[in-house]
C-alpha cells in the first residue's frame, strides 16, 4: 500500500500512521449532547468498500484524509485534512 502524500508524492505505508475514521474531523460543539460525543469517539460506519480515514505522515508532518477501499487496499486519493475540514 502506498499513499500519495500531496507534499511528498507517493510514499510507502511504513511512513504513515493511521489515526482512525475521518469522522474525527466532524467534531461536535462543546455543548453538544453526550450522544454526539459517543458518535464521534465510538460509533463507526465501518464500510466494506470505499472509506475515508485520517493518516499522519511521519516524514513531513501532514495530516491527510485518505480515500481508499477497505476490501482491495486500493488508495484513491489523499488530501490535506485542513483543506477537507475547511471545505466542510
Amino acid at each position: 500500500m502506498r499513499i500519495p502524500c500531496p507534499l511528498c508524492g507517493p510514499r510507502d505505508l511504513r511512513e504513515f500512521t493511521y489515526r482512525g475514521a475521518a469522522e474525527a474531523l466532524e467534531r461536535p460543539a462543546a455543548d453538544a449532547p453526550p450522544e454526539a460525543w459517543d458518535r464521534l469517539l465510538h460509533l463507526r460506519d465501518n464500510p466494506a468498500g470505499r472509506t475515508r480515514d485520517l493518516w499522519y505522515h511521519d516524514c513531513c508532518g501532514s495530516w491527510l484524509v485518505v480515500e481508499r477501499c477497505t476490501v482491495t487496499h486500493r488508495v484513491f486519493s489523499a488530501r490535506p485534512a485542513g483543506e477537507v475540514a475547511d471545505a466542510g
Partner: protein
Amino acid sequence: MRYSGLRVLVEGLRGNRGWRPAWHRPEPKDAYDMVVIGGGGHGLSTAYYLARNHGVKSVAVLEKGWLGSGNIGRNTTIVRANYFLPGNSEFYSHSLKLWEGLESALNYNVMHSQRGLINLFHSDGQRDAFARRGNAMINQGDDAILLDPDGVREHLPWLDFENVRFPIYGGLLHPRGGTARHDAVAWGYARAASRLGVDIIENCEVTGIRVEGGKAKAVTTSLGEIAAKKVAIVVAGRSSEVAAMAGLTLPIESHVLQAFVTEGLKPCIDHVVSFGMGHFYISQSDKGGLVFGGDIDFYASYAARGNLPMAEHVMEAAMTLMPMIGRARVLRSWGGIMDMSPDGSPIIDRTPVEGLYLNCGWNYGGFKAVPASGWCLAHLMATGESHEVARRFRLDRFATGHLLDEEGTGSQHNLH
C-alpha cells in the same frame, strides 16, 4: 454415533466403512424459534448451548460459506484466562473451565492442550505489572506463577536472555493456558449441536433482517426468507455490515490481523510464549509448524490479507526473542478480519431492536472465548437476563462510560 477408542478400533477392523457425516445438512425450514447468523465458533457454541442448557428445540445456524470458513479457522488457537479487569476476568475464567470439560461434553477431540502460557517481561515496571496481573488471576481462582530468569530458563532455554535491547527479566506462567485445534472446535460444536436437533445451514448468506414495529421478524437469505422469534448476530469481522441490515451503527471498526506458520519441525517449543516488548506470540502445532502472530495492521480493512510492514515487524520480534527461528522457513501467512471495539472488550447484549441480539467486538481474542461466549449469549436469549459473567459486555457501555479497557490505551479502535 458416539465416538470412542473402541469405535476407532472397530472401524479400523471394518475398513472404516461405518463413519457417517458429523452433522446433518438439512434444508432450511420456513420458521425457527431462534436463528443464529454466523456458523463460526461463537455461533455454533451459542446454538449448542441454546439446545443443551435451555432445551430450545427450534434453532438454526446460518453460515454464508462452509462451516468453519471464517475466523474460527484463521486464528492462532491460544486458550487462556489471564485477564485483569472485573468483567473480563470472571468471563474468561468461566470460559477456561468450559474448555477443560469441552471434549467430554461434546464427545469430540478438540485437542485442547494445557501446555502452559508464558508472558515474558523485560523491565522492572513490567515485572510489577505482571505480578499484579498474576495476583488478579489467582484471586479469580485461576493459576499464575511469577518466574525469575532462571525459572524461565528451565522452560525456555532457547530464548535470547541477554538481548542488549530487551533482556528477559522473567515471565508470568499460566499453567492452565494452552492451545486447541481450532477447526475441531467448530466441527465438535457443529456435531454436538446437530445431535441435539439444531439445523446447521451452510452456504446460506443473510442479505437482510426484516424489522417490523421495532421487532425482528425474519431474516432474508440467499435461500429465501426465514422467520424467527429471536435472531442473534454472531458474525465478528462483519458485524457492522450485518447490524446495518437492521439499521444499527456499531462501535466497531474492522481490522486485519496476520498470522504465520513455518514448515513442520520436530518438537522444540513446548509452551505458548509471548514477547513483552513487541506484540508477538508463538506456539508449535501438533503437526510441527511454529504458529505465530503479532499486531493488527492498524488500518481499517476487510481484506483477508495484510501488508508487508507488519509481516516484517513480526519477523523482527521473532528474531529478537528467539534467534533460532531464523533457520525456520515460513510456509504461509494469512489474515483474519477482527471486530475492533473502542475498549478492546466484546459485546454480548440485546439491541434496540426487540428480539435481535448481538455478539461481537472480540478484537483478536475471540478464540479462547468461544465456549463462554455461546454459553452467555444462549443464556441471554433463553432467559432474557445477562449471564452474571457477561453482564458488563453491554452495547451501551461506550455511551455511559463503563468501558472495559484492559490495556488502558483509550477509545481508539486500533490500539487494543
